[in-house]
């Protein structure tokens, strides 16, 4: 199955795809379609049919437009010639005076613009390296200047024959016809070059986009990872190193795995990321966060994260351990959160009454928001704070 070409295209990429598949310069294929169109419009019909039946182009594949050897070009030319004679016999024909001169002009264009294969190119490229790249590339193909002159001559001859043999038939007078034919001739000579130039520009643009993406990635790595690595080399305290490494790990992971999503605090996951990073940085502990599910950050959920912060800070300050676990689960109707440490623990009745953190910031706040906050602790067995609020959006 042949597919149309995604980027080597003039109309729909049929010729590009066919050329890629057969291994012939798409330009030759295009010319064949042009010539067949003169034969009673057969080329146009064939092109439409091909557009409908070929597979849609695969945008990921970059076209490698093949280079054609002289033999291949000759073969395609002979096939075209044979089919034309056949069509002429069948009566699908616009008349000798139109078709043959045009065919000659098109042949001239083919001689000028068909790219030669690599070995031919290499031989000539040194001689033509001073020309502008595209013209040099084309003319160095095979026979260089000879090709240009021969092709140009054929085009001119085709145009002249066309004008002279059609003057009587046209009836309206030769001048407009001659002008139109000359314009067409110029188009046949210069058109392919302009097209190739346009394609080159498009390719350069693609390359630029790729480079910009690379640059963005490099900039990010520089701003974050390299800076952190530099800081780590200067830090002498193991804890400092750990905190730096942890916050960098967190940041890089969120960047890599798409948590880069708008950090405007609209989602619980983003708020938790920020919270954990903040506590790690300020209190120099490791916070292992496990989050199941995600939801929007409503007022109640915000209250939960506020209490969560209080619980985390308490654990960081009083538990006396280097790490704490935070688990948050978003259930269909509620959000629950747990802060667990394996630290010293405490007995509630021995906390003096003027320490209001637990009562106000955890139990009180959760109750005010239609939820519940519980602190479970036992000396020597660590502490767990359990928080829960109902979801308003559920």
């Amino acid at each position, binding site marked *: 199955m042949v597919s149309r070409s995604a980027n080597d295209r003039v109309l729909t990429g049929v010729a590009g795809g066919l050329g890629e598949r057969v291994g012939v310069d798409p330009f030759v294929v295009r010319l064949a379609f042009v010539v067949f169109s003169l034969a009673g419009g057969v080329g146009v019909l064939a092109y439409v049919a091909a557009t409908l039946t070929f597979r849609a182009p695969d945008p990921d594949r970059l076209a490698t437009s093949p280079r054609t050897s002289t033999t291949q070009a000759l073969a395609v030319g002979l096939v075209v010639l044979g089919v034309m004679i056949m069509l002429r016999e069948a009566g699908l024909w616009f008349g000798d005076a139109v078709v043959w001169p045009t065919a000659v002009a098109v042949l001239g264009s083919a001689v000028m613009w068909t790219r030669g294969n690599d070995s031919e190119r290499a031989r000539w490229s040194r001689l033509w390296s001073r020309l502008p790249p595209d013209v040099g590339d084309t003319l160095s193909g095979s026979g260089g200047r000879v090709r240009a002159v021969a092709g140009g001559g054929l085009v001119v001859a085709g145009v002249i024959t066309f004008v002279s043999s059609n003057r009587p038939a046209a009836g309206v007078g030769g001048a407009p016809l001659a002008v139109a034919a000359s314009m067409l001739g110029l188009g046949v000579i210069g058109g392919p070059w302009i097209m190739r130039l346009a394609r080159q520009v498009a390719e350069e643009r693609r390359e630029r986009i790729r480079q910009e993406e690379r640059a963005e990635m490099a900039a990010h790595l520089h701003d974050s990872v390299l800076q952190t690595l530099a800081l780590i080399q200067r830090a002498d305290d193991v804890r400092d190193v750990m905190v730096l490494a942890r916050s960098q790990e967190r940041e890089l992971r969120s960047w890599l795995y798409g948590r880069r999503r708008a950090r405007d605090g609209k989602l619980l996951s983003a708020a938790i990321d920020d919270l954990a990073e903040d506590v790690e940085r300020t209190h120099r502990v*490791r916070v292992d966060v*496990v*989050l*199941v599910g995600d939801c929007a950050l409503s007022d109640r959920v915000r209250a939960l994260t506020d209490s969560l912060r209080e619980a985390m800070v308490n654990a960081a300050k009083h538990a006396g351990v280097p790490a704490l*676990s935070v*688990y948050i*689960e978003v259930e269909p109707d509620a959000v629950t959160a747990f802060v*667990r*440490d394996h630290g010293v623990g405490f007995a509630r009745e021995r906390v003096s009454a003027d320490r209001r953190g637990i009562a106000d910031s955890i139990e009180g706040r959760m109750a005010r928001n239609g939820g519940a906050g519980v602190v479970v602790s036992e000396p020597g067995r660590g502490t*767990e704070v359990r928080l829960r609020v109902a979801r308003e959006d559920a």
Partner: protein
Amino acid sequence: MIRVFVVEDHALFASGIRNELGDGFAVVGDAATVADAVARIPGARPDVVLLDVHLPDGSGADVIEALGSDGPRFLALSVSDAQEDVIAVVAAGARGYVTKSISPSGLADSIRRVHAGDAVFSPRLAGFVLDAFAGRTPPRIDPELDQLTSRERDVLRLIARGYTYKEVARELHISVKTVEAHVSAVLRKLQLRNRYELSRWASDRRLV
């Protein structure tokens, strides 16, 4: 003596493991790529393979799949990654997953546990599994594979909350052995689900 094989592409980390694992462990070989691991593990005859989730030429799951079910026991190890990658390695047959920030004693303990045939769930893996079973996936044909029992869910939640197996047992008034049984059951479901999905994938494409 537990024979340990390390599959890890960061040489620094691999040598760190060698040094940290103290008495009772022998590192019998290492590999940095999937190809090397598949070639060397059968000859080294390890009891437990420490397996990085990401390798230069593939994933840890590829190693497990290449060695088949008669191979050694695997413990996945990585700087925690995307949920799908971790789940894939565990579903392929690893007996557990720990992050590289685990303490040396924690790692030694995990290896012993895997060697004994138990499953090792870090809090992060418990969270990943709960997420994977959270019903966001479209319903499949076999409900037994699609759901965790409420007890299994309770156990996973406690592990995700940072409880040790012993603490989970105490909290739920069950024995540590029962906790391990629940965790192993979850692991089995994941692996069955994986096999089931693979065979469905194959039959969808008329490969079998």
